[in-house]
């Protein structure tokens, strides 16, 4: 059977003592795609990843990888490999022995496994550090080694648990690019857990927004951003204001809002943040709800406002997305 999907979750539930971490979610991830699981902490995204990896028992439901039901299989037989949040490098082994570990447990001779591990260290540009211990490496270097260790098992699906969270912002953007390139080159599926919407939008082919053990929306990032399925999704991915109008509850992108003196919704300026190409103006309405507008810099500086100023917020009905 040639599967159309690399990963399929069917009514997967994870129950702890008396709480439900993941509540009967179903999800299909197409072949060789980059999928981001996004949500606030405690939404069940990490539990989902760990169930796919086989590190967490599945309470109910099934998981299929490349068409094969792997629900009861151990990690290594699933065709998955995981990169852990703290990298989980073995502190007593050198980089090359860390990478070669999965070959060692398969009983492959030392010289053969080291030669192969060196190839994977090359792939992540870490060959020069082969004989170092993990403690002698920077965070970014440790991550590369962890990546090589995960890739050497030649997984169909690579699972990444918040891989960028321990890196500084500059490195984060660089590693982000590399991950995406690697995923294209290897043509395998990456499932990447994150709580950062920037990261998810930058990387994902498929973006899955989770909350309280449920999937709230799943689709390409652009679709999620332009047509959020609920108030929660709109708030969580950011960049949207939520209003209750006579047409019902609507979401409006903040960069489609403008400030005016008449004909808009009255509000008071709370804060002004200069962001280079744009200016973010935080406002409070008369009802006390927090909204904001993102204005191109020329537009803002043509009619600047200051905190405390009374103003009005304007948007057009076409930009409203009904929830």
């Amino acid at each position, binding site marked *: 059977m040639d599967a159309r999907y690399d990963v399929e979750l069917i009514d997967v539930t994870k129950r702890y003592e008396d709480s439900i971490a993941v509540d009967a979610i179903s999800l299909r991830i197409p072949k060789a795609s980059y999928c981001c699981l996004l949500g606030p902490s405690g939404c069940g995204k990490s539990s989902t990843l760990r169930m796919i*990896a086989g590190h967490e028992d599945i309470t109910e439901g099934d998981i299929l990888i490349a068409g094969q039901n792997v629900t009861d299989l151990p990690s290594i037989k699933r065709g998955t490999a995981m990169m852990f949040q703290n990298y989980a490098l073995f502190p007593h082994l050198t980089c090359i022995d860390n990478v070669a570990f999965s070959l060692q447990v398969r009983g492959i001779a030392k010289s053969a496994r080291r030669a192969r591990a060196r190839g994977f260290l090359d792939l992540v540009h870490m060959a020069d550090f082969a004989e170092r211990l993990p403690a002698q490496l920077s965070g970014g270097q440790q991550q590369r080694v962890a990546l090589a260790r995960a890739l050497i098992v030649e997984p169909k699906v690579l699972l990444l648990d918040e891989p960028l969270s321990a890196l500084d912002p500059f490195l984060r953007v660089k590693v982000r690019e590399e991950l995406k390139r690697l995923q294209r080159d290897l043509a395998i599926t990456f499932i990447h857990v994150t709580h950062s919407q920037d990261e998810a939008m930058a990387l994902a082919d498929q973006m899955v927004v989770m909350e309280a053990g449920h999937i709230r929306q799943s689709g390409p990032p652009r679709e999620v951003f332009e047509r959020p399925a609920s108030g929660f999704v709109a708030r969580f991915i950011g960049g949207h204001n939520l209003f209750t109008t006579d047409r019902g509850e609507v979401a409006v992108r903040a960069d489609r809002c403008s400030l005016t003196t008449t004909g808009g919704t009255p509000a008071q300026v709370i804060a002004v943040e200069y962001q280079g190409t744009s200016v973010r103006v935080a406002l409070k309405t008369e009802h006390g709800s927090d909204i904001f507008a993102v204005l191109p810099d020329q537009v803002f500086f043509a009619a600047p406002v200051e905190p405390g100023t009374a103003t009005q917020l304007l948007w057009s009905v076409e930009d409203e997305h009904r929830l």
Partner: protein
Amino acid sequence: MDVKAHARRRRAWLTSWLQVGPMALVLVLLFALPTLLFFVVSFFDYDRVGIYPAFILDNYQDLLTTPATWRIYLSTMRFAVMAWAITLVLGFFIALFLVFHIRSGKTRMVLFLACAVPFWTSGIIRTIAWIPFLGRNGAFNTILEKLHIIDHPLEFLLFSDFSVMVTYIHLYTLLMMAPIANSMAKIDESLIEAARDCGASRFQVLRLIIIPLSRTGIALGSILVFTQVIGDYFVVKRMSGGQSASIVSALSTEIQAMQYPPAAASAVVLVIFVAILVAGMMRVVDVRRELAR
């Protein structure tokens, strides 16, 4: 600038010296000097009435040429190695169970305390507690007879090498288990998952990850058990029924007979022996750095 930094460093040293001073003083006065003293006395001459300052090697010569000395060292080493091996296996697997198999912190705490509580009862009483248990008419024989497993009471249970070993294991397994459990508790759970992810079997995880990462605890526990057994004189005397002697029980007989110089020579030899053993085990790990991790 350089001078200032130097003065500041001096001041920091002075603070540290003041802080460690009392402990250093006690250890020098009550440990280092007395040890030096019996080292000196080991070269003294003696007769039935007293000891006389001298520099003779007779005490060492007598000690090392007596076959009994070698026999006793061998017998004590045999006990030490056996007690070490058994407490190591027992302590390691119990620590493994407590740290990696018990999921609730509360259960772990209760089980650990259950292991530790007998430690608060006097070692002497814990030793003699085995007498009514292992004796000819003791609880163990009675149970076996009631169950018709044996017809006659087992004689080897008490006042034998067997009862000495049983007592050592009873007394010292905790000394092995606690440091190992402490090392294991510092192993990040995700390392085990990562190893499983790489396809390691349960046994491979144990051999390639858990054992290497517990080596500090294993070394510390080994040092404690080894030195306790080598330093023992009570258990051997009491539980072997006078059949075995230990290095220290032989030494204590000489001290009671006021034969200080030969006792001191014997003590010096024992100290060198223990020092070599411990130094060997300390080479495996940097105890101080590992404790502070």
